[in-house]
C-alpha cells in the first residue's frame, strides 16, 4: 500500500532556481526508505516539501491519497508526518523535558501527552536521566535521540530523518539506526536521507537515487548498492570535480 506519494513536484527557495524538477516518487507503508544522491540533488528539499515547510511550485503531495501540499506544517503534522531535520533543530535553552513537550505541541490532552512521554522515554533510556538538562548542553548523539523522541511525541505514521548520522561517532550511528529499525517494527514508515550511502542502504528496505532534482532510479536497497549506475553517479561527479582522479 502506498502511504505517501509525490506527483511531478517542482520546488525551489525564494526567487532561486528549481531544486526539484517535476519529481514523482511513491513510498510504501511500513518500510524504511533511503534517499541518496549527490549534493544538491534535492533530497532535503524533498523532505521539506513533504513536511510543508516549503510550498511546491507545481505538482502535489498525497498522504493516504489525500492532497497535503499547500497545507500548513502543523496540519501535515496532525496527519501524522513528522520531520527530523539535519541540524536536529532542538530548542537549545529548553530542558529535554520541555523539548519533548513541545514535540506534542499540537496535542492538547495532558494525560495523552504524559502517557506518550513515558512510552518514548522507555525507548530511549539514555535521555531519561537527562530530562532536566538544557538540550543545548547534550552531546550530538543525545541530541539526535531527543530529536527523534520529540518527533515520536505525536505518534507519527511517517517519520522523515534528514541525515541522522551527520557528525556522530560510528557506534552512536549504529545505535540510531537500530532505533530506526525498531520504529519500523512498530509500523512507522521511515524515510531517511543519507550521505553515508552504505550505512543508509544497509538498514533500508528500498533505495531511491536522486539526481538534479529528479528520481534517477529506485529499487530494493541491496540491488541499489550493487547497481553500476550508482558508482557512475558518484564517481563520475567526483571525476568531473577533480580532474586528477580521471587521470
Amino acid at each position, binding site marked *: 500500500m502506498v502511504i505517501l506519494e509525490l506527483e511531478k513536484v517542482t520546488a525551489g527557495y525564494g526567487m532561486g532556481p528549481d531544486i526539484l524538477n517535476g519529481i514523482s516518487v511513491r513510498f510504501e507503508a511500513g518500510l524504511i526508505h533511503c534517499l541518496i544522491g549527490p549534493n544538491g540533488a534535492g533530497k532535503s528539499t524533498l523532505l521539506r516539501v513533504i513536511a510543508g515547510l516549503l510550498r511546491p511550485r507545481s505538482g502535489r503531495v498525497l498522504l493516504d491519497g489525500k492532497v497535503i501540499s499547500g497545507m500548513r506544517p502543523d496540519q501535515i503534522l496532525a496527519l501524522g508526518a513528522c520531520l527530523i531535520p539535519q541540524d536536529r533543530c532542538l*530548542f537549545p535553552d529548553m530542558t529535554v523535558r520541555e523539548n519533548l513537550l513541545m514535540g506534542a505541541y499540537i496535542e492538547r490532552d495532558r494525560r495523552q501527552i504524559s502517557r506518550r512521554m513515558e512510552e518514548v522515554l522507555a525507548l530511549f533510556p539514555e535521555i531519561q536521566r537527562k530530562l532536566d538538562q538544557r538540550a543545548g548542553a547534550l552531546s550530538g548523539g543525545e541530541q539526535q535521540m531527543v530529536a527523534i523522541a520529540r518527533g515520536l511525541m505525536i505518534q507519527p505514521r511517517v517519520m522523515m530523518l534528514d541525515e541522522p548520522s551527520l557528525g556522530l561517532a560510528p557506534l552512536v550511528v549504529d545505535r540510531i539506526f537500530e532505533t530506526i529499525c525498531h520504529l519500523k517494527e512498530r509500523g512507522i514508515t521511515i524515510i531517511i536521507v543519507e550521505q553515508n550511502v552504505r550505512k543508509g542502504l544497509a538498514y533500508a528496505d528500498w533505495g531511491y537515487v536522486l539526481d538534479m532534482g529528479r528520481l534517477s532510479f529506485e529499487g530494493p536497497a541491496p540491488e541499489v548498492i550493487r547497481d553500476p549506475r550508482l558508482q557512475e553517479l558518484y564517481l563520475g561527479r567526483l571525476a568531473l570535480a577533480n580532474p586528477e582522479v580521471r587521470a
Partner: protein
Amino acid sequence: MSQGLQVLILGLALGGVYALMAIGVSLTYGVMRILNLAHAAFMVLGAYVAYWAFRILHLDPLLSIFINGPLFFAIGILLYRTLFVPLAGRPRYTEATLLLSFGLAMGVEGLMGAWWTGIYRAANPAYATRSLSLGSFYIPEGQMYATGVSLGMLLALWLFLHRTRIGRAIRATMQNRTAAQIVGVDVEGISALAFGLGMASAGISGSLLSFLSPFFPGKHWQWIASLLSLVVLGGMGSLIGTVVGAMVLAVTSVYVSSALGPTWSPATFYAALFLVLLLRPQGLFGRKEG
C-alpha cells in the same frame, strides 16, 4: 554608606520599571527579529491616555493599565498584521522592520504633537508627590507602586512563558523558529501574539510613566535610546538579559545622577552601550550571531 544604600534602593526600584519598559522590545526582537523603534513612542502615547483618563475621568493612573494593556495589545496585533506581515521574507528583514517602525515612531510623535502640543505633562495623583520612609531610608510612594506593578507584570509574563503551552511556544519560536514550525507551532500567530504583548507592555509602562516623570511627544527618542541601550547590554533577544541590564543601568544612572547631577544620568546608558560594544558586542547574556 547609608547614602549609597539609599541610592541603591532607588536604583533598583527604577530598574524594575525600566525592565518592564524594555521587555517588550526584547520580546519582539527575540521572537521575530523585529526591532521596534516605535516602542517608546507608544509608551508616551500610553502615558497620554493615562494622563487624560486621570484629568477627565479622574481615573487613577495605576488603574489605567487595565485600559492601556488591552488597548495597546489590540493596536499591536493590528499593526503587526497590516505593516509587518507584508515584510515577511524580505531580504534584510530586521533592517526593513527598523525603518518601518522608525516611520511609525515619527507618525505617532507628530500626531501627539499636533493634538496635545509639545508642553510637558505629568499626571499628579496624590501619591506622586508623597514619600514613604523606612528608618533612615525613603522611597517615593509613586515609584514604589510603579515598581510593584512592573515586577508583578514581569512575574506574570515569566509564568506565562514558562508554565503555559502558548508561552512555551513563544519561547520555542525565540530559540529556533524552524524547529517551532516543525513541531507544529503556528509561528505567524505566535509572532502576532508576541508583538501584541510587547505593545501591551508599552501601554502599561505608559500608565506608569504618566506620573513618574514629565513627558512630551518628542521625549520618546530619549526613552527608546535608553531602552535599546539596556537591551543591547543584556544581549539582544534575551529576556533575562534585559531585566539584568535594566537593573544594572538603572542603579548606575542613579549613582551618576547623585554624583554629577541629573543631567548626565541618560549619558550613563549611552556610555554603557559603547562600552559593551567595545568589550562584549553580544551583550551580557547574548549569543554570538552568524
